[in-house]
């Protein structure tokens, strides 16, 4: 039987000590498996759903919440991923003071470079997933070409990619 308070606190802890959509995964994986509140299959399924469902990639936690504890689990998951990012207001409040200092400003410029690099590393990870092949790279290049025009909605690009995937891999 899942204790909702403990369940929420575990999800909240994982979110507090992570940055990005998937870095809370190891902590949640460890805590829920240890209590037998989730199975490996739940995690695999939740991550798969997170990839095809709309919204930020971190919503995989919501599907995990639903799979493990129904609508209560999903609600607690939404709450747990919503609260920690509110700390950004504190960070923004401090940022004004920091930005008056050239060295702190330069450090934030360094962080901006790192943030871009992290995005590029995500691209690398995506196109090098197990099972990826040359056809997948072509799909990625095609999606890039459409997205860079700014004229094609992203949802249309991904729908087209689904169609291409169906034709190529079924």
């Amino acid at each position: 039987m899942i204790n909702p308070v403990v369940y929420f606190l575990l999800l909240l802890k994982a979110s507090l000590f992570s940055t990005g959509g998937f870095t809370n995964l190891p902590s949640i994986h460890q805590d829920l498996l240890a209590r037998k509140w989730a199975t490996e299959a739940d995690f695999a399924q939740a991550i798969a759903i997170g990839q095809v469902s709309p919204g930020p990639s971190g919503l995989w936690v919501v599907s995990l919440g639903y799979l493990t504890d129904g609508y209560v689990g999903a609600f607690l998951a939404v709450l747990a991923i919503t609260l920690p990012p509110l700390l950004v207001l504190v960070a923004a409040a401090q940022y004004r003071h920091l930005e008056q200092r050239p060295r702190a400003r330069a450090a934030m410029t360094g962080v901006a470079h790192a943030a871009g690099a992290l995005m590029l590393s995500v691209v690398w990870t995506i196109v090098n997933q197990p099972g990826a092949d040359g056809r997948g790279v072509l799909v990625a290049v095609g999606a890039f070409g459409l997205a860079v025009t700014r004229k094609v909605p992203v949802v249309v690009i991904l729908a087209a990619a689904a169609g291409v995937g169906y034709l190529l891999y079924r």
Partner: protein
Amino acid sequence: MKANGTIPADVGAVRHDNKRNHQLTLWRFFGVWASIGVQSIGGGAATTLLIQRSFIERYRVVSADEFARLWSISVVTPGINLVAMAVLLGHRAHGSRGIVAALSGLLFPSAAITCGMAAVFSRLAQVAGIQAMMRGIVPATGGVMLVVALNFLWPVTRASALISRRRSLVSGMLVLSGTLGVSMAHLSPIAVLVGSAAVGGLVLVTPHQPKPQRESQDEREPMQTQDGGGR
């Protein structure tokens, strides 16, 4: 719209000098976020691109370089960066009500759809046609993410290029080493962020920084002026 007392004016203030931004009522703001939330199939890449298009290009809530600045704050904040970004953009557009509008618009419709998908997906996951479509969608999200990354890096690296060749080189090295460090050496993203902050703090210190984009010059507030001149 007044800013929260503890938050800098530049974070919470509505930009009345902006021709597009004043059209963004609270309800429309909520609608834009809800639209982003339900359209952004494919995870963070699609979401970020839609946010860029909506709030930089269409409604001009922020400029491109300012978006990069806010993103830098978001990535050092716990939790999902895009949620933190929604908090900042919500606060900028409509104060605390904007935060509620942004978060509820971004998260609740998409979370409801996610729940619905969780209910049915387990039955469909093994269907060969669905798996084939996923093999098309996944690399496409990579292509979309590349556009997001380039949109993000453009103002940052261009600002370096305008200052000096040396700074431009450092800028390129930071991006390259960060990308390879995480992708090939499997470094922790936190380590890359901290390391880049340290290198930036040591090497990228300049008393004057250029205004990387003309449109952003018009939108800057005194706090954001890098030369301290209070434009």
